[in-house]
């Protein structure tokens, strides 16, 4: 094939050499550390017969995984639901025109708003000394008595929704935009009532975005660390926070391999999730052109 860079006169089979810096960089700073995790995780821990990667899915560690996956599933589900509703609502409002741009910019910030500042904001709002806690208290409801803590399951769920909903919003706005008005009108003229349009046309066409969004939100919550850490000062039962404990406490426990094993399992779960996401995206691309 003739290419515009022919003038360089590099024989075709040497051309990929130009990609060497990129591949070496990824290999050195991403693949090597990631693959080494698995090697380290296969060794047994102190006072244990089984390999760390096996031990990491037993007992309290298994519980941690279940807890983290539950949290990720729940925040992904709620994020999909509310994010889609928010996108549909914002698109319904035609005027003023700037409103939609404003919402897109704002959600762009919020979707990326993780870590320390977000945790601060929610501690100031819903922590034991929080403003909203106080507001609710003035209506006669003591938040702490209901079992709610900003660092327990319900609390982390609410905090995570702060970035999950905007992320889903950003995924769904183009998806809703992709639904052409003439499809709805064609369906109506063919006798489909609005619910039939959504059942047979609208929902199937949105399914890739909904499913893909769900997987993206799941992986987003699953790999989140900073927010959870700052919310509960390292005491949470989330896998990412547990990994930190092993990495820093390795001299005491002698179980630092467990940290590697937990991280390896995270990569496996993320790999499955992202593969699913890519398959869905590839399939949808076919008829979205």
């Amino acid at each position: 094939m003739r290419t515009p860079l022919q003038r360089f006169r590099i024989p075709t089979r040497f051309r990929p050499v130009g990609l060497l810096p990129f591949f070496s960089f990824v290999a050195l700073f991403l693949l090597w550390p990631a693959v080494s995790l698995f090697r380290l995780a296969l060794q047994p821990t102190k006072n244990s017969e089984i390999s760390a990667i096996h031990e990491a899915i037993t007992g309290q560690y298994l519980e941690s995984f279940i807890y983290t996956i539950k949290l990720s599933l729940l925040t992904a589900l709620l994020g999909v639901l509310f994010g889609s509703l928010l996108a549909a609502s914002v698109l319904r409002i035609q005027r003023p025109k700037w409103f939609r741009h404003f919402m897109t910019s704002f959600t762009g910030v919020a979707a990326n708003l993780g870590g320390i500042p977000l945790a601060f904001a929610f501690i100031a709002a819903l922590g034991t000394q929080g403003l909203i806690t106080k507001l609710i208290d003035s209506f006669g409801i003591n938040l702490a008595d209901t079992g709610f803590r900003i660092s327990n399951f319900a609390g982390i769920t609410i905090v995570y929704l702060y970035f999950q909903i905007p992320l889903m919003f950003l995924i769904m706005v183009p998806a809703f935009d992709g639904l052409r008005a003439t499809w709805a009108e064609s369906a109506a003229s063919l006798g489909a009532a609005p619910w039939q349009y959504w059942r047979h046309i609208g929902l199937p066409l949105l399914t890739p975005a909904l499913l893909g969004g769900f997987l993206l939100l799941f992986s987003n919550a699953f790999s989140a660390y900073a927010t959870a850490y700052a919310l509960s000062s390292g005491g949470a039962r989330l896998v990412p926070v547990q990994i930190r404990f092993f990495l820093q406490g390795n001299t005491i426990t002698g179980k630092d391999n467990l940290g590697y094993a937990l991280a390896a399992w995270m990569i496996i779960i993320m790999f499955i999730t992202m593969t699913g996401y890519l398959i869905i995206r590839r399939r949808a691309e076919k008829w979205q052109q």
Partner: protein
Amino acid sequence: MSALEFINVSKNFGGVQALEGFGLALAQGELVTLLGPSGCGKTTALRIAAGFETSDSGSIVVNSTDIAARPAHQRHMGMVFQSYSLFPHLNVRDNVSFGLRVRGIHSDERRKRAEEMLDLVRLSDLGHRMPHQISGGQQQRVALARALATEPHVLLLDEPLSALDAKIRVEVRDEIRRLNRDLGVTTLFVTHDQDEAMSISDRICVMNNGVIEQVGSPRDVYNNPSSSFVAHFVGSINTLHKGNTRILIRPENLVLTTHDENAQWRGVITDITFVGAFTKISLRLENDDTPISVLAISAQIDNSITIGLNIGINEAAQ
């Protein structure tokens, strides 16, 4: 009894009068074209008939029933858009049988009917294909089959040919005309292209600024335009002066003459365009610089007719 009738329909879009006292009746099996420049209200009229817009006043009558208050999905109209708008996740057959599916018709019968409809538009081999795997012309024929599968009261076509290539456009145009004749389906066709309107319609309804300028057969509208707007919009026309009166003459109703010293007008040839059987000659009138054009049979034009020639122009004998 007419198959579809607009009675005194008006529609205002935020201060812009899109339709004003619009009245039109389509006889059973008739193909009527709404023709006009963009923004003349033709699409609005079609969308009001389909139920996608509601009129501010007036009624839409189908088979003696006023359906103005009915939602679109209860009107039983077949609609075809410029953008094909096939459902991208359904194959061709499922697209065609969609209207039957939402009516709860059994799948075997749906399949049979879809095959029939695809036969009708000569695409029976493509039933299993996805919309993105077939050409634009094929997609539009599938859209026609889909709209006709439920045997609608009226077929509504919104610029269905505008997105197609010139050659395919003629094919699909003839297809529409054939389906209209063979099935006897009343058809309302919207276009801004006068050639399209001329070649396909039983009657043309020329519109401008939300009102009807003229309704009549293509021949009628062309030969006896009721207004200067219609004369200019349908075909091309020259504005000439005969003494103190202004007259409108079609290019083919003028003849050039090299030897008549008393020709009605004189002008200088500025351009000669050969278009096959005919040749279009552009001129500039001697006394008032008005550009005009004359359409002559090519066989009658010889080498003496050249650019820059001063020549006499007469009205053709009727």
